[in-house]
């Protein structure tokens, strides 16, 4: 152990429950501050795009949501792998706690993509490589959640979900490239996905700040969800009973 600090202490749901409870307000706070800053950049500092006028401003929601949706899937699979490798219950709980947030962000990115596509391309949906792979990612999240929901035994649900998350993460690059090549061969209408020729630095900054906000929000939401999962799973244990007594 480095400096005598025991990391494994927090692998126990009971200690993690209190730690998460203390951390959540900080992450929510960071998310709120970053979101306010990001929206300020998005609406007041970023210039109007000369091609897409004001409509492009939805990228400040759309792109961070899309980034985070992919990132969360990887994090989820990483927790699943840690859980399978070290047999730590908390890792599985983290994976299941992340899935709804990831699915929500995937949905947000699809939805805002549709809203953005209508004024810019004149269509709510095009079978573009990125849109299609994002849609498939959404299906992967749904599959993960549906599998866990269908299994009553939490131990089996944990491990089965972890395995399908890992299988999914191996497949994501294959799916992405197949969809990309499929798209380049089938491209009928000449819809170009390239954004404005040179993206102003301020736009990139805005997107990064919003992505950080989404990241902080995702951590906070996952931690609150993991607390609920811990309580649900450990409802018959002594420490939960003691905590409830102390609160009553």
């Amino acid at each position, binding site marked *: 152990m480095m400096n005598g600090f025991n990391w494994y202490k927090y692998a126990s749901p009971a200690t993690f429950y209190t730690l998460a409870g203390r951390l959540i307000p900080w992450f929510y706070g960071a998310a709120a501050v970053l979101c306010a800053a990001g929206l300020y950049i998005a609406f007041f500092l970023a210039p109007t795009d000369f091609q897409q006028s004001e409509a492009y401003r939805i990228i400040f929601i759309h792109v961070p949501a899309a980034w985070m949706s992919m990132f969360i899937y990887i994090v989820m699979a990483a927790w699943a792998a840690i859980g399978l490798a070290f047999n730590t219950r908390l890792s599985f709980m983290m994976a299941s706690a992340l899935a709804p947030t990831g699915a929500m962000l995937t949905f947000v990115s699809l939805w805002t993509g549709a809203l953005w596509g209508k004024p810019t391309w004149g269509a709510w949906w095009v079978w573009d490589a990125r849109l299609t792979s994002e849609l498939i990612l959404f299906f992967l999240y749904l599959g993960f959640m549906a599998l866990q929901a*269908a299994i009553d035994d939490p131990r089996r649900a944990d491990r089965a979900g972890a395995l399908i998350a890992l299988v999914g993460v191996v497949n994501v690059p294959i*799916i992405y490239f197949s*969809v990309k*090549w499929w798209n380049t061969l089938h491209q009928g209408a000449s819809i170009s996905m390239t954004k404005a020729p040179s993206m102003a630095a301020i736009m990139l900054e805005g997107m990064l700040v919003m992505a950080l906000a989404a990241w902080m929000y995702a951590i906070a939401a996952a931690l609150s969800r993991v607390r609920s999962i811990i309580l649900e799973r450990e409802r018959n244990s002594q420490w939960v009973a003691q905590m409830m007594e102390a609160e009553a």
Partner: protein
Amino acid sequence: MLQIVNVVLRRELILAMRRRGDVLTVLFFFVIVASLFPLGVGPDPKLLRLMGGGVVWVSALLAAMLSLGRLFASDYADGTLEQLILTPTPPVVWITGKILAHWLVSGVPLILVAPILGVQFGLSGEALLVLVVSLLLGTPVLSLIGAIGAALTLGLRGGGVLVSLLVLPLYIPVLIFGAGAVDGAMSGLGAEAHLSLLGSILILAFILTPWAVSAALRISIE
């Protein structure tokens, strides 16, 4: 090792021959789904020729998915699966045998019928050949990947619908390269690139999925 694969293979084939109805159901499902498309989109030969490869491939995907229930369910119900896991043989070996048998029983009939469907859609001779080759390379992948879903959903409520949710997104690359190969042959671009990619996916799936299936079965049986 090969002997074990052989024994498992023979056992599965005998079991399948005793319940021929199951095999035929999947085959007819495949034919019916493919026949629904012209009824849905209209009989325009030009449109149908464009769609043919994709329609046959989508139907094959659905049929393969439908047959997954058979892969482990009956062995799970009567306890054979548990006994197999308890044997000293590495699970990967007999799992490979079972998947191979599943492909022979549910994949190969589709490949044999596909040219007839292709003719109905007006595919040219070369496109038909490519269709068969692409199915030959692609349907084993469907059995391999599907086995993971089948193993994970063993004994669950609504396992059939759940398996489709888990497995269909993972089938997408096979669909794209399979239908793309037929498309390439029709448009004169050539099908080699798609077929090579399908082949590489097959090799990758053949190496990796039995391990995932073995892990999934352990999780489900425990």
